[in-house]
């Protein structure tokens, strides 16, 4: 399942790495937009398969951030 950005902004912090197990609601990464910290949460439990971005990267709304395997 692909996690996409809810907003146009910049990647600020990435809280997980490939292979990490996440529960529904866990914060995967935090974006910065409109001078606010916007957390991106896992919609379902799973394992992080891959990350498509790194801190400092600008992203568009809907852009792929990472892939979670349930």
């Amino acid at each position: 399942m692909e996690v996409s950005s809810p907003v146009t902004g910049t990647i600020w912090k990435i809280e997980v790495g490939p292979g990490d197990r996440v529960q529904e609601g866990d914060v995967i990464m935090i974006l910065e937009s409109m001078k606010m910290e916007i957390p991106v949460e896992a919609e379902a439990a799973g394992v992080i398969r891959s990350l498509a971005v790194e801190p400092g990267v600008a992203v568009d709304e809907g852009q792929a951030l990472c892939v979670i395997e349930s």
Partner: protein
Amino acid sequence: MASGPMIAAKDVAPAETPKQSKMAELERRVERALAMGGEAKLARRKAAGLLNARERIDHLVDPGSYIETGLLGVSSVLAEDRDSTPADGKVAGFARVDGRPVGVVANDFTVKGASSSLTNMKKIGHVKRVATERGFPLIFLGESSGARMPDNMGSRGMGTLLGNDPHQYVRHRESPWVSAILGQCYGSSAWYSCLSDFIVMRKGATMAVASAALASLAIGQQVDPEQLGGWKLHSEVTGLVDRVAGTDEEALDQIRLFLSYMPSHNQEAPPVAAVPPGSDAAAAHLADIVPENRRRVYDVRKIINAIVDKASFFELKPRFGATAVIGLARLNGASVGIVANNPMGKAGAMDVAACEKITRFLVMCDSFNIPIVLLVDTPGFVIGIEGERMKAPGKIMNFMTALQMCSVPKFSIIMRKSYGQAYLNMGGGRNSDEVAAWPTAEVSFMDPAYAVQVVTWGRDVDDEARAALRAQMERDSDVWGMAEIYAVQAVIPPGETRDYLVRMLDVHTMRRSRGVGKHLMASWPTTF
């Protein structure tokens, strides 16, 4: 002469009188109509976990309250269809929901796909006229293949069936209209859904202008029904649907719930419900919900649930325009419409979808005498090419016009940020009847982080001066300046918000018109 066995006179049934024969004919026709499309089709629906038209009405309305209109109607277009069109495919009548009258039209998909034709259109017209003139909601249980073919074909068919009611699709919002999309909805089923005030859709159902089969024919490639008109499309992309349900029963229960907030018609105030015990308790924790760090976000639903009567918040369009949260709720038993910025969504910045959903909600609340509560925490409107391509300035103005045309009481609570034009759209200044702010409110034209760059553009200003300027701007954004010039009517601790709203609702009761507003948007378009 040969004769059969002797038969006693008493064993011979007397010939049926004309009166008895007519009663028997009535019984036969009633039984035929109630059988709908027949055992086989009904069994298939049951096996698929779907209710039929009459079961849907039974589940929705108060037991024993349903009285049908037009039970013996059949196709009046083709003589050969008379025996195969019980109730002409649409089951219509009057009933009660939670003791209050309603008109209901349930599509019977087992009869020619519940397609529209002359007799059933007359039935719908009648129920609609009665509901409007006698003052009660109209409920459409949608599942229809559209207009009946070949009844509507050719110029004679068109002239007979379509276009003969010049008011068929006009809404003046005299009473609430509610639709459930419970199967394939094309044609009139889709039209009446779009015209409704509340639309709930069952997963697996579809709503579109025409079927996927027809669309595939027209464009020469396979069209996926879910992409054409499925629940995800309508709850997340188009916003044409307010809520999604897993089963027919769940959808019907949501209709009952929606109606419980609404008046029966627009010339009366909404009903007042009992206040659940413990409704005052949660407000004490309001101050803890907004984070200490002004850069952090939170889910505004937590705030809403702590302010309104316990468990009374009924959210609409939760997956569309998610930067704002809208829904019906109660304060001290009275219905209110909640409009709240949600920092969880794009930091609370309002995009085009949020503007559309809020605008339509303002129109509905104002048209049905429901006061509006705006909870504000927004850095402004979303800026960028995507929004401009979706006519952002026009949508912002629709929102503004609707807000200013409301005659129901409006209350605005500035919780944290309120910047720029969004300050007006969320009820700032004289755009609501009472504005109260929390001590954490920040109000200015532009966030100081951006504003300091704008005002020092192209000028030779060092970092220290820039930092000092920014700090001054941040101090100026504090709420005290507004309070001193009476641009807010009150500054209150978060924990007092529920009490403040309950008291102000009472102060602003529309006594002179018995709780009824001016309805300046009663004819506002239903989609825009």
